[in-house]
């Protein structure tokens, strides 16, 4: 480190907090410049792509929401003020969509995170076949939501696997509903398959959290004669504080973005019982080509996401 045949650049001195740096020599200037140039050349491709495909469209979306832009239109784009938002907030379908995703989130967030935690606890200890179970629990996650939706669409039929199972399990007493064609059961059906698909993902995050808790804490608790429940209550649960926040935020945001399942299985029906915010945005932006109106919906969605993650972070922080 201290032997220097070549003069160090000012950069390297900061990068590696080496002992005393030798005095700089006159020709460090071009070398410094070269580091700047090659550095920027390396940053540029990724930065340019992010600028072009994240920053610009985000700003554009914000702007387009206040215009009458259409995907393909001979008319020039005009500023129309808050027209799109007025139309949005007076549209009963939008309120229905908001209600639907709230219903979805209120059920999915606690149930899915609870089941995922249970799964994580079940495979946290080393035992024979732990990898086998881990792989199986995780299998639905790598299956595409589109395939999952198609699969469950088939199982949810009036004469499908689910109803046959219910009938067999109840000795013919239960005659299952036509899940996806009944407004009363369509959303619960989508909720069940969504939890089935994504619980494994959150199990892995819980697992990472569980493994970050020091084993000494459990040993100490066992010495004190703490029961399994007490160990969970006083060691595990507090130890998962950060993981908890993370999981709450990610599940809620994912829940609000509900789209693929609805697009494949119900197209928002029956009677708008499964329509969602993103589904409405895609329907108006893509099918009706109303880019501006869709941008307005997207903007409302974004504000909602920001708001909820802020509230959740605040609430989960408040408790300590």
């Amino acid at each position, binding site marked *: 480190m201290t032997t220097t045949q070549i003069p160090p650049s000012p950069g390297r001195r900061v990068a590696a907090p080496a002992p005393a740096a030798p005095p700089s020599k006159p020709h460090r200037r071009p070398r410094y410049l070269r580091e700047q140039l090659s550095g920027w050349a390396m*940053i540029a491709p990724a930065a340019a792509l992010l600028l072009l*495909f994240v920053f610009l469209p985000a700003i554009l979306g914000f702007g387009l929401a206040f215009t009458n832009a259409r995907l393909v239109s001979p008319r020039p784009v005009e500023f129309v003020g808050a027209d799109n938002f007025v139309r949005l907030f007076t549209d009963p379908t939008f309120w229905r969509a908001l209600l639907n995703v709230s219903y979805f989130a209120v059920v999915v967030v606690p149930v899915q995170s609870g089941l995922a935690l249970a799964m994580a606890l079940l*495979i946290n200890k080393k035992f024979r076949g732990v990898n086998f*179970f881990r792989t199986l629990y995780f299998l639905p996650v790598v299956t595409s939501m589109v395939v999952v939706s198609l*699969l469950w669409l088939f199982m949810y039929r009036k004469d499908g696997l689910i109803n046959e199972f219910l009938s067999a399990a109840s000795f013919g007493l239960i005659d299952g509903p036509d899940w996806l064609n009944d407004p009363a059961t369509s959303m619960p059906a989508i909720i069940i398959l969504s939890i089935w698909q994504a619980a494994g993902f959150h199990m892995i995050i819980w697992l990472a959290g569980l493994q970050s808790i020091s084993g000494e804490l459990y040993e100490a608790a066992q010495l004190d004669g703490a029961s399994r429940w007490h160990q969970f209550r006083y060691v595990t649960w507090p130890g998962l504080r950060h993981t908890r926040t993370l999981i709450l935020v990610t599940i809620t945001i994912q829940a609000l973005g509900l789209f693929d399942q609805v697009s494949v299985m119900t197209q928002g029906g029956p009677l708008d019982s499964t329509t969602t915010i993103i589904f409405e945005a895609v329907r108006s932006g893509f099918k009706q080509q109303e880019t501006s109106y869709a941008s307005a919906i*997207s903007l409302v969605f974004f504000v909602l996401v920001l708001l909820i993650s802020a509230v959740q972070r605040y609430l989960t922080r408040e408790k300590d």
Partner: protein
Amino acid sequence: MKETLTSKSLSSAGTMLVRILFAVVAAFPLVFMLVSSLKPDQQIFGDMSSVAAFLPIGNISFDNYAAVFDRVPAARFLINSTGVSAVTVVLGIFINSLCAFALSRMEVRGKRIVFTAILATLIVPFQTLALPLVWWVNQLPFFELNGFSLEISKGWLDTYQVQIIPFIANAFSIYLYHQYFESIPKELDEAARIDGAGWFRIYRLVVMPLAGPATATVAILTFLPAWNSYLWPLMVVQSEELRPVMIGIQYFFQLNVSWGEVMAYASLITVPVVVLFIAFQRSFINSIASSGVKG
């Protein structure tokens, strides 16, 4: 003493039972899919009321798979998805690691601001970006070399590049590489510089060979959404010969569909990912775990 032992083994047997119950719930739809893909429709419905629905028994054949290739340009879709995913993964690894390298290991002026701006893009969910992005890519020009003349075409809709280029740069990949590069001692760069290596050589020969786990993570986290993407190609790709596998599912959205064929197609586009998953199971799960602990 003996009593506590028995109650302990009882409870561990109970735990095992719960584990198996969860495993059955996790696996049964996928087993049902694979098994049904081998049966004619009539038998699928006939077997539904019994455990036979999950067993490859009776009239088993690959007829449904053959039929799928007649009904859907499945081979074309598989090639498209493989190509688009592979190019996105390879370019994504290169461009994001290069950017993270400069941000974490070089003294570039203003890099802090750039890094913060890159991380800021993480809060924008893709769904909110998608529709303005469709409008935006429709305005972009593209240069095409046709023989010896350069042709400029307007609009990226209905191309391969619209499925690839917007997804190459990824703030999360840059973040993962950045974190990983920070853990590699900077003395290595020093030594290489003394030997006269330029920055790109250091990136290529010193740092990247050490960043295997980060590369595996980025590869997996880029591959999965690329292979599974549905919303985006649905909006921007019309031509059949350019479409990826997930869109092929639309070929079955019609009345009087053959469910055996649907299950065969679903298996066809799921099995490659499942095989990859099982092969790289450990790094797969670890990468998801490490990606989760970002908050």
